[in-house]
């Protein structure tokens, strides 16, 4: 997990940088939510086949 490029930044935050980070987090969140929906669907199917 070494990220030498992301060092502590001492310049004032710019709107562009804040938007870039928010965008990155929003994309990750969307991917995780989609994965979770698929997981819950798969668990539901699995539970139904176990209880049959």
């Amino acid at each position: 997990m070494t990220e030498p490029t992301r060092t502590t930044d001492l310049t004032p935050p710019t709107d562009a940088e804040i938007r870039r980070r928010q965008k990155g987090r929003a994309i990750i969140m969307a991917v995780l939510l989609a994965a979770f929906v698929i997981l819950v669907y798969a668990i539901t199917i699995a539970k139904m086949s176990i209880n049959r």
Partner: protein
Amino acid sequence: MNTTTLDQTYPADWRDFLALTKPRVMSLVVFTGLCGMLAAGVPVNPVIGFTAILCIALGAGAAAALNMWFEADLDAKMKRTAKRPIPAGRMDRQAALHFGVGLSFFSVILMELAVNRVAAAVLAVSILFYVLVYTVWLKRRTPQNIVIGGAAGAFPPVIGWAAATGHITLLPVLLFLLIFLWTPPHFWALSLFVRSDYAAAGVPMLPVVSGARVTRQQILLYSVPMAAAAVAPWPLGLAGAFYGITAAAFSLVFLGIAVRVLLNKASEPAEMKPEKQLFAFSILYLFAVFGALVIDRIWLT
């Protein structure tokens, strides 16, 4: 704390949240959890099995995040940990707390809903144990901190077993004991040759408080019952000869290196070859013993 206010106006990067979960520690947790589940020897629905392992990994990640939330001041003082997201000023402490608490609840609730209550209960206990008993209560107070902390790392095979069977029997308890007794020699071997870093942060690690000689004695002292716990499933009829002989052979090598550590008088890290050997071998040891158990229980008995 040494974070600048300017940085905190930036939302933390998602990679820093990932770093909070200590992904490398997670791999050992996932491995032992998976072995516990497979060693149970009962058929597990692949989706449910995957979810159980996912919950174990998320729970371990949550505990790691809460550990970093609480220990940001310590981490800032040690070279090895100073680049973590909070001490490096890339993340607000509050964000780590919310992330850790949220992930803890998520992993336990998902385990309860998708797998079973026993697995969810043990997962909850293991997170609380690591965060409250180890991180908050004991780590800064006693040189036996790592012994207690080892218990938190010993839960995954028990959770895996409980996920597969819905209950806990003698074998998962022995696996718990094995990791519990394995952790002190494993970690003390490391702390012998990185001692200065802990001393700088004021963590009462055994070599700092009691010196190298006592640490080397304690390493051997824990290795003997560890070897006994590793071999025990064989005479108890819980595993076959393949497992028994593998565990005995690896335990003998472990004990052999532990004796060499005891006989080593060096105080300079450069001369601590047996200590470095023991640390490296201890990782191989855990993988070999757990791997042998799974092979033995699935294909041989």
